[in-house]
């Protein structure tokens, strides 16, 4: 292995130059950092700048039988960060491939390379007329667009299904050939940019959540901005209102879904966590009562047991009618519904600015959060979304530096199952999550985000301090218990971390037999991301 690796490394060095082939332990450390205690042996890191370099890298890897592991930027926090699934892989860090091209202002399409980040795309779109929304997520400005889309991430603005917005892909296969869709092969590249399925079998999809090739570019469809954007917040009163919240969200999405982005149902503890620090001291004194303490704190902070947050995008002529219909759907229950536009938030802020700084601290804090939500909903990524990762660190969020939860020593696993938008199932699921988190002493911060009018994804952050060995172990056990127990009640994660890949693959099942025969056919040497969504 070592011999093969060093021979390959020599060739890579002559291809890329010394500085773009990292083999020093010190240089590799950055890639080994993670938000869990996972440890992977990494052979080397390669930093190509072009597709042709990727092709050459793959050919060298094939020649020496060395496994590669492509990452876009390695900011897959909570799922393994930059770490490969298997030991001894050579990481292909695509972050230097960050060109934007083929932007069509009229059609709202753009071709991006793997290194393009949310922040970069957002700046670019702002400079070029500000007509389109950047697909923002809760991973912040430094996370890549392409990596997220290929992992089938979802975001806060339409098109919130990021994989759906991929119109076409360019992929370097294990034999070094470059895959494009069938219509592209016919010389009609412009058609490929505006139509997802192409002609012939829909093969592009096999390059998402898989290990069949290295995606070097993709064209994505952008959603045009509307004249009016407002966020809406519905506050519920009782814990038992969850079922009503599910029914209301489903109704909104069925009847007004085309005007709304993803809608989230958020519990009190998550709301409270966004606004207050973890009460280390109080809980240390009485760890058995952690959940009760947190719940009481949330109550004192004025956070409702459940709140729905969503945003509306509409033409100025119809926005009032849409809001009226939305109010009608929520009904005459004692639940409060509020609409906030940028203008309204700005007005409140202006008033607060005139008052002494010490006054209305809670409102000031909330306005900050609302401004953040407004930014995210208008496609401006914000770094603050990452604060949740720092919640269990005694030092809190570091000031004055770019946040990177893996480098900053955070501990977080994401458990993100998807579940049908049915009140009884959601209820059972929430009870299960609360009970499981409780059993492992983990704060149950629950969010249900709609992926469609039929389906929620529920991103549960399992936050811990990796330096606290006991807590770290509890966190991991909690994740395993959530996955296993979730499965028993009929829900399963929509994406997996590197340590969970073995759990998903069931070799005796036809799906995985098909996956394996495709893998054997396309990558007989298994040099592409061994073990990733694969045996």
């Amino acid at each position, binding site marked *: 292995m070592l011999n093969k690796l060093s021979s390959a490394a020599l060739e890579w060095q002559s291809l890329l130059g010394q500085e773009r082939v990292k083999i020093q332990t010190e240089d590799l450390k950055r890639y080994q950092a993670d938000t869990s205690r996972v440890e992977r042996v990494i052979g080397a890191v390669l930093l190509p700048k072009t597709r042709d370099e990727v092709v050459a890298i793959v050919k060298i890897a094939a020649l020496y039988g060395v496994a590669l592991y492509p990452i876009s930027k390695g900011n897959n926090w909570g799922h393994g960060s930059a770490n490969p699934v298997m030991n001894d892989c050579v990481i292909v860090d695509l972050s230097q491939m960050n060109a934007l091209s083929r932007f069509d202002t009229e*059609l*709202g399409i753009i071709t991006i390379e793997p290194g393009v980040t949310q922040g970069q795309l957002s700046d670019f779109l702002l400079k070029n007329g500000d007509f389109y929304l950047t697909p923002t997520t809760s991973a912040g400005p430094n996370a890549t667009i392409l990596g997220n889309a290929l992992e089938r991430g979802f975001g806060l603005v339409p098109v919130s299904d990021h*994989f*759906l917005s991929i119109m076409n892909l360019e992929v370097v296969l294990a034999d070094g050939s470059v*895959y*494009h*869709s*069938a*219509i592209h*092969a*016919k*010389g*009609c590249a412009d*058609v490929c*940019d*505006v*139509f997802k399925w192409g*002609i012939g*079998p*829909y*093969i*592009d*999809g*096999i390059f*998402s*959540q898989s290990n069949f090739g290295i995606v070097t570019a993709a064209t994505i*469809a952008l959603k045009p901005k*509307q004249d009016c954007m407002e966020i809406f917040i519905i506050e519920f009163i009782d814990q038992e209102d969850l079922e009503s919240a599910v029914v209301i969200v489903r109704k909104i999405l*069925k*009847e*007004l879904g*085309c005007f709304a982005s993803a809608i989230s149902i958020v519990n009190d503890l998550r709301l409270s966590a966004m606004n207050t620090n973890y009460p280390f001291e109080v809980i240390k004194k009485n760890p058995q009562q952690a959940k009760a303490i947190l719940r009481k704190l949330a109550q004192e902070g004025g956070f409702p047991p459940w709140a729905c947050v969503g945003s509306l995008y509409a*033409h100025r*002529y119809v926005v009032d*009618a849409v809001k009226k*219909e939305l109010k009608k759907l929520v009904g005459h229950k004692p639940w409060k519904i509020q609409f906030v536009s940028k203008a309204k938030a700005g007005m409140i802020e202006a008033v607060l600015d005139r008052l002494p700084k010490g006054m209305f601290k809670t409102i000031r804090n909330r306005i900050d959060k609302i401004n953040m939500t407004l930014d995210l909903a208008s496609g401006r990524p914000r770094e603050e979304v990452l604060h949740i990762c720092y919640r269990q660190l005694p030092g809190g969020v570091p000031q004055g530096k770019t946040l990177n939860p893996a480098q900053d020593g955070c501990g977080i696993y994401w458990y993100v199952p*998807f*579940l*049908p*938008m*049915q009140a009884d*199932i959601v209820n059972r699921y929430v009870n299960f999550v609360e009970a499981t988190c409780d059993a492992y002493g983990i704060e149950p911060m629950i969010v249900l985000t709609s992926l*469609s*009018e*039929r389906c929620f994804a529920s991103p549960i952050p399992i936050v811990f301090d990796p330096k606290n060995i006991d807590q770290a172990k509890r966190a991991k056990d909690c994740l395993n218990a959530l996955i296993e127990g979730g499965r028993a009640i*009929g829900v*399963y*994660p*929509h994406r*997996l971390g590197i340590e969970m890949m073995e759990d*998903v693959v*069931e070799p005796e*099942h036809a*799906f*995985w037999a*098909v*996956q394996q025969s*495709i893998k*054997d*056919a396309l990558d007989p040497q298994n040099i592409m991301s061994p073990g990733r969504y694969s045996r």
Partner: protein
Amino acid sequence: MIEKMVAILDDERVKTNDEDLKPYRADTTGVKRDILAVVYPKSRDEVISIVKLAHENNISLYPVSKGNNWGYGSANPASDGCVIVMLSEMKKISGYEPHLGLITVEPGVTQGQLAKFLLEKNDKYLTPTTGAGPEGSILGNALERGYGLVPLADHFFAVMSLEAILADGTIYRSAINAKGCEVVDRVYKWGIGPYLDGLFSQSNFGIVTQMTIGLAPRPEHVETFFFDVASEADLEKTVDLVRNILIEHGALISSIKMISALQLLSMSLPFPFDDIENTSEGFVAHLKKQAKKAGYRPWTCVGSFYGQRSIIKAAKRALKTKIKPHAKRVIFLTRARVLFLQKLLVPFRGLIKGSLFMQFQKMLIPLDLSEGRPNGGALALCYRQLRRGVPEDISNLNPARDGCGLFWYAPLVPMKAALVRKFITFVEATCEKYRIEPLITLSSVSEKCFDSTVPILFDPSNSDQTERAKACFQELLEGGRQLGVYPYRAGIDMMKDLVDEKQPFWAVQRLIKKALDPKGIMSPGRYSKQ
């Protein structure tokens, strides 16, 4: 082999007689295929037995849902010597979820059958309706990535999960299903792990025996709008206008169609067989003149609003303002308004021209379609080049059986004004060359892309016209490709043109085919070299 099939299915469901195979050989594109037999399984298990038998005996199978793939080969296999697996008897509807808008269908379930089912379930969801009529299969259309006339128009996108029988007889289901999470499997399209379901669309990797599709909720209100543009020179402006309407009001509009004057003419008046023989002007020019006389402007744009009454009311105002600088008027139509006008006209039935009355009768056909009520009205077009015209009974039209001639040329056209102009000019010139009516419609697939449907109609008993139609189709395909547009699906005779194994895409396709179906028993030649 046939005896063994009989052992599985009984005599009745294995047909080898020439007479019995004849309906399967009928087609609108004039293809001729040798068909070994037709078998009619009734269940997934019977499909598995058939596949295993075919696998052991190296017999090629060719599954069809209903065989109503008119304009693309109908029921005919891509290659000679196949056994057609006719799935029309597998027509179970199950798993209806009134809250989630989900339903599971087998291949034989038709638009008409689903519409009836949903109507009986309180009419809460729209049937994915196409112009193919009530006898078109839902599953077949979705797998061919067909487009419909109501929201959730991308029928393949609506496929949430599917079950397929592979060449070795195993049953493919998604990875989530393998985890025992069947409900989740049905609510989320992509599942977990590589998205493999998509491999079973437009391909020959297996036999899909059922699928769950998402349904669009029936809205409170549907209202159709029309506007037309006065001059051919306004084409570019109209494309931009359509795109801007979709950008601003796409939330309420499923699709906007730009319909050419000749297409509209074809829907209201019979083909002028005799006039056109004697005309001294060009073929297309003559037809355009006639369209003008009938009052049709070069382009008519049609779309429907779906949603709440109050929101549509506001959107109508916005639309009027938007359209005003470009077109004289916008007409809004609802079912209630048409019925009212019809009633109003009844007393004057004798006084007004028959054709106007008929126009109002006909208006209900597109309105029905836009409300997710399938009907065969759109199929009448296929009969246009037959001198005998449309059969009296339009409730059971079957263009292949009835001897119609039709190729569908349906390229995807990016919504760029300059490209659309080039495309239209090219289609008209090519049609002129071959004396084929250029019946052009551009239907928006999104605010970024049109799918243009150009039916190439001919009379198969007229061999000269048949040759011209074929040549016209070939030239449209190749010339269109050079312009940068290409169809979204292929007829059985087009597969050879499409597959180019030097390209990595088709190399990957071939590797997958070899891995999943090494003997090549599944639909040989369908979106595939083998």
